[in-house]
């Protein structure tokens, strides 16, 4: 029995292991809920998918129209209404397009046909340009097309949801 002692865990090792284990467990039990609190925003589901009425479908033309609407926004413990803007029109194929005016370069607001920028969306901050489909014109600062709002049509009324990035130039 005594020659086997080398393989056994010594009293000191045993105490080291158990104390480290218990200490580690206590530390983790203390920190885990705090970390959970800090990363809560990552665990929450993405914002609401509500759709808001914006305009009637038969008012939509080939010419982009600027419409503002309000979404219910829950900002922590504040329920607020947030203003959204969309450029709404039908493209060449007759499909409805509702574009966000937020420039995909650095977040300024684009305008339709300002100055000598006919048939284009133009961003005054760094001269970003987008064609009539809201697709960025290569050689100008934006790296992607204007985001497009999800939309639903009910009883000839147009409802808009979230604005999502699109594939493009």
């Amino acid at each position, binding site marked *: 029995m005594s020659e086997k002692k080398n393989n056994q865990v010594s009293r000191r090792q045993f105490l080291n292991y158990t104390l480290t284990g218990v200490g580690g467990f206590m530390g983790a039990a203390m920190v885990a809920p705090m970390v959970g609190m800090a990363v809560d925003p*990552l665990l929450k589901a*993405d*914002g609401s998918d509500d759709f808001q009425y914006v305009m009637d479908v038969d008012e939509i033309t080939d010419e982009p129209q600027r419409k503002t609407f309000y979404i219910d926004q829950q900002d922590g413990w*504040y329920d607020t209404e*947030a203003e959204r803007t969309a450029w709404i029109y039908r493209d060449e194929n007759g499909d409805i397009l509702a574009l966000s005016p937020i420039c995909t370069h*650095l977040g300024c607001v684009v305008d339709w046909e300002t100055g000598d920028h006919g048939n284009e969306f133009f961003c005054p901050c760094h001269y970003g340009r987008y064609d009539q489909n809201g697709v960025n014109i290569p050689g100008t600062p934006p790296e992607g097309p204007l985001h497009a709002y999800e939309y639903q049509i009910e009883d000839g009324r147009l409802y808009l949801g979230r604005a999502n990035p699109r594939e493009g130039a």
Partner: protein
Amino acid sequence: MLQKIYDWVDERLDITPIWRDIADHEVPEHVNPAHHFSAFVYCFGGLTFFVTVIQVLSGMFLTMYYVPDIENAWNSVQYLQSQVAHGQIVRGMHHWGASVVIVMIFLHTLRVFFQGAYKKPRELNWVVGVLLFFVMFGLGFTGYLLPWDNKAFFATQVGLEIAESVPVIGTDIKTLLAGDPDIVGAQTLTRFFAIHVFFLPAALFGLMALHFIMIRRQGISGPL
């Protein structure tokens, strides 16, 4: 009287070696501007610390009035700025000090860099110094939002978008900082407040302690 109190305490706790360790050391000739005026470049680290102390103290007093809430933050700042005795001065110290501390820490970094004072055996202290630089930037960034005016809001918007441009995890970083994937609002303000007054100062104090212990251990680097 003071001497008697000191002796009474010292007799029991032997505190003389403690403060000797901290405060009683010679300033070498080559870093003393009284000997060589050009040695003023060695002051920037100390000035950084001095301004940091101002920041900590003025910040503590600002929190007596400041409320990190989107409806009250701006009003509380407006109140402490216009109605509170010397509020304008204390907030002014914190406001301008924030810029001065960045300038000082930058000059200090330049001095250490161009004198090669970061070389062996002081590499670790350089690393800690760079971490301190990052913590200072973090304090500046989070503090900038707190007055909750338009400048603060949009500066933070831009800062968060820069964080978002990090590959792969950028969106998560932004959400973690802002407290919400889309909104810069109530939760962003409370988070930035917590980071500004608790998390980053804690990191700052720890790193500063390391910085100073290492200086004391290794001494100031020799003359050029």
